[in-house]
């Protein structure tokens, strides 16, 4: 962990000390890909702009294409200008920052490339004072992870070691971590030959989102809510990850992945565990991650009946999004015209522990839905009896909504009396918006995550046991889908809220999906 001992300098004020990133070199594998341009470099630039990058820092882009340092820097400047959350680009900041960016051409399997990389990093250590500390960001196809880690280890660029002050090495891995349980297990076995768990940072960028981090503060910093956060008061939980975009140019990826692998198995499980976890004993990474793992391990596994009854898959057909006509999944580029890959998943799951016994968690994720929304909605049980019937009908339940994106914030739906002589009831929202209260746009998820990795804090990264538990949960679903082809794909129009079967999942219990 990184902090300067206070007894070293009389000038250091413990009350002002904040987590800071260690001097290090960040090496990005696959740096000419989309993620680097859209997310990583804008994140690094904003960290630099806000003084959050370590004073001693350099970045090396490792990729297969032929470029000079200058060419790569110019490309990244263009990307940052386009994708940074703060525009326009600050030329002074960029000029200083760009002097720390270097490009290294090599193939991922070439030993010469790793030798020359090692030499380059030594030189940069001397020049920038980075103390031999390394972060390797694997922004590549997952199939390259084992070979890259193996080569890094073989060339002494990473050493398997937990607690080093200097000369430490860490590896950031992007999802997907495996294709199913056995491939995830295999990848884990291969990587942990060369790295300890503490050195592996599995990114789930949802964990870097401000509102997701706020979940812990909201839950455990506000006792009035924590006392209601159980099956005595909560009727059900809905978690929605909705996108209005289609698969775009990622047809090839989607044909291998599908919605369950891309979103449900990772992002939605993270959200579920944060909503459902017990209070940790402290705010250290281990304590928080221990509680999250317990949630995933408590989720009731899908038996044969649940596999058909509690999970719905869908695939979008043609339709309209925001007034524009769009094609169906099977008409997208690089997609099999008879593809059975799902672009929508809805499921009902139960967490079998004291807190949540009997409370259904309804998860839905889909592409080409009417709008982009990620939210968690906690629906509370209705008031007992019929004190306020609202003309023979039960009044609306209270709903606490945590909006992850867009329009980050929290709202609470309550019932109020309409002014006048009669007792008519009107639901209203008590609303908190991050933007309204805190003004400036919050840091992007990748800024937080990269900074945390450089500081050695893996709280916001997925742990192996958590990941594997999640794969164990969904493996039977993947196998069943593999063996049972859907008969009705595509089964929802683009621009609708998914297949009708997903509605029936809730309607049979007298519930409805929220109209978002």
């Amino acid at each position, binding site marked *: 962990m990184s902090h300067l001992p206070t007894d070293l300098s009389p000038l250091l004020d413990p009350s002002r000390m904040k987590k800071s990133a260690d001097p290090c070199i960040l090496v990005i594998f696959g740096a000419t890909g989309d993620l680097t341009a859209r997310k990583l470099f804008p994140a690094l630039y904003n960290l630099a702009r806000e003084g959050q990058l370590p004073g001693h820092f350099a970045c090396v882009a490792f990729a297969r294409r032929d470029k000079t340092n200058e060419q790569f820097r110019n490309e990244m400047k263009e990307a940052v200008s386009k994708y940074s959350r703060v525009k326009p680009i600050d030329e002074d900041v960029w000029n200083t920052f760009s002097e720390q960016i270097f490009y290294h051409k090599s193939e991922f399997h070439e030993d010469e490339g790793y030798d020359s990389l090692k030499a380059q990093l030594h030189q940069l250590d001397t020049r920038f004072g980075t103390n031999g500390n390394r972060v390797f960001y694997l922004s590549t196809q997952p199939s390259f992870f084992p070979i890259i880690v193996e080569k890094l280890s073989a060339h002494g660029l990473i050493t398997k070691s937990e607690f080093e002050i200097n000369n430490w090495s860490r590896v950031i891995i992007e999802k997907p971590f495996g294709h199913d349980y056995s491939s995830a297990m295999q990848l884990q076995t291969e990587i942990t030959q060369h790295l300890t768990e503490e050195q592996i940072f599995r990114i789930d960028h949802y964990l870097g989102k401000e509102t997701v981090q706020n979940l812990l503060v909201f839950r455990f910093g506000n006792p009035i809510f924590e006392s209601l956060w159980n099956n005595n008061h909560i009727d059900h939980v809905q978690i929605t990850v909705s996108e*209005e975009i289609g698969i775009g140019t990622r047809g090839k990826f989607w044909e291998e992945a599908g919605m369950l692998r891309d979103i449900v198995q990772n992002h939605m499980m993270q959200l579920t565990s944060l909503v459902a976890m017990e209070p940790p004993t402290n705010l250290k990474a281990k304590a928080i991650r221990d509680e999250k793992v317990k949630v995933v391990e408590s989720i009731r596994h899908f038996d044969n009946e649940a596999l058909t009854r509690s999970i719905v898959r869908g695939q979008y057909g043609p*339709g*309209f*999004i*925001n*007034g*524009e*006509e769009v094609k169906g999944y099977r008409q997208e580029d690089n997609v099999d015209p008879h593809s059975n890959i799902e672009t929508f998943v809805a499921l009902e799951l139960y967490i079998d522990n004291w807190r949540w016994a009997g409370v259904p968690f309804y998860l839905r994720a889909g592409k080409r839905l*009417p*709008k982009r929304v990620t939210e968690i909605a906690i629906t509370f049980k209705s008031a007992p009896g019929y004190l306020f019937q609202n*003309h*023979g*009908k039960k009044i*609306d339940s209270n*709903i606490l*909504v945590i909006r992850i994106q*867009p329009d980050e914030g929290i*709202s609470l*739906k309550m019932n109020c009396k*309409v*002014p*006048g002589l*009669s007792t*008519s*009831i*009107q*639901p*209203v*929202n008590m609303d908190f918006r991050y933007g309204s209260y805190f003004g400036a746009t919050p840091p992007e998820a990748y800024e937080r995550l990269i900074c945390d990795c450089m500081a050695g804090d893996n709280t916001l990264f997925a742990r192996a046991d958590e990941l594997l538990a999640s794969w164990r949960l969904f493996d039977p679903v993947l196998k069943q889908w593999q063996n049972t082809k859907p008969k009705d794909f595509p089964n929802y129009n683009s*621009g*609708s*809220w998914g297949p009708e079967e997903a509605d029936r999942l809730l309607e049979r219990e007298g519930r409805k999906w*929220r*109209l*978002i």
Partner: protein
Amino acid sequence: MASDTAAIESGFPIIADELAKIREQQKNEGRVFANLFTLILYAQEQSKIETLRNIVQSVIKKFPCRIIFIEGHLNEDFDIKIDVSSIVDTNNDSYIACDSITIFVGKHGLQRVPSLVLPTILPDLPVHLFWGDEPSKDDALFSLLEKIANRLIFLGPEAEGLQAFSTKTLQSFDTHPCAILDFDWALIGGWRDVLSSCLSETFVEELNKIESIHLIYNSSSNAMIAHPDICAIYLLFWLASRMGWTLKNNQLTNQSFEFVFQSSDHTINAVITSKELPSLGGIVQSVELANSNGFHALFCRQNNQAKVRIQITTQDQCELPYTLFLPDPRRGLTFMKEIFYLPTSQHYKQMLQLLTQLKTT
């Protein structure tokens, strides 16, 4: 109506982004946005569009809400145009503003409308659908919107379509999961309250012997009242249905509507006539009930005021006239509450039942 408009002639803007921009601008002017529900309105005819626009102005005085106004111009050769703005009740110098989205739908644009409306619904709050056309199950847009609505409000039918409207609406109660309201029915709420409070248990025996009814309504045009004739017919048929009468005959002439009802032992002749009274407000101007036993009840609206003067005489007694107030739909909270909060009235259903007996000529 003050508005800050981002009118987009073509293309499909991201409505949420445009709303956010307008809100930011309005915030600098000290305005606050409030929404109690999403109000979706649809009409094709220009007169109905104007009526609905006027209704919106009345609504936002009492209940700030997000307005999604769909104007059907289905004979015009264009696709879709969108106007995103805000509305403020400037008459009261209110600081509360409401989101306003207008979707102009041309010949080729109808299928696009749901994809523009669905993302704009306010989560967790009621959705009220105000349908300015005749309800039809063949209308794909109506079918989709009524599925998401908590409440359906109809502007009401034209006179010649009243029987069909009544039949269809009665069928709708079985198929629509939400409350159904009729704007014309709500407009006569005040008169229903006056008649029911004045013609109390004391007069039940006299009412059972009513032989003639004469109702006069104001046929001059009114910004919020599309069908004054329907309002008058509704009032009459409400009374008739409450008395348990059946309809024997009906006739429509240029000047009046004539009805013959049948009670258990006698017939009742009812006439509705219109008068152009542009200087007076209101819809129903007077209701006169009489029987051959000397019972006579006259309810008469007072000039341009929302007051009804009531005089009731029987064979044995002549009451002193007195006055009751009618709620003003332009300002009335009671009226608005009827539209947006009260459930479908059983009286309304029974009135519709009786209207299905109308003979179309």
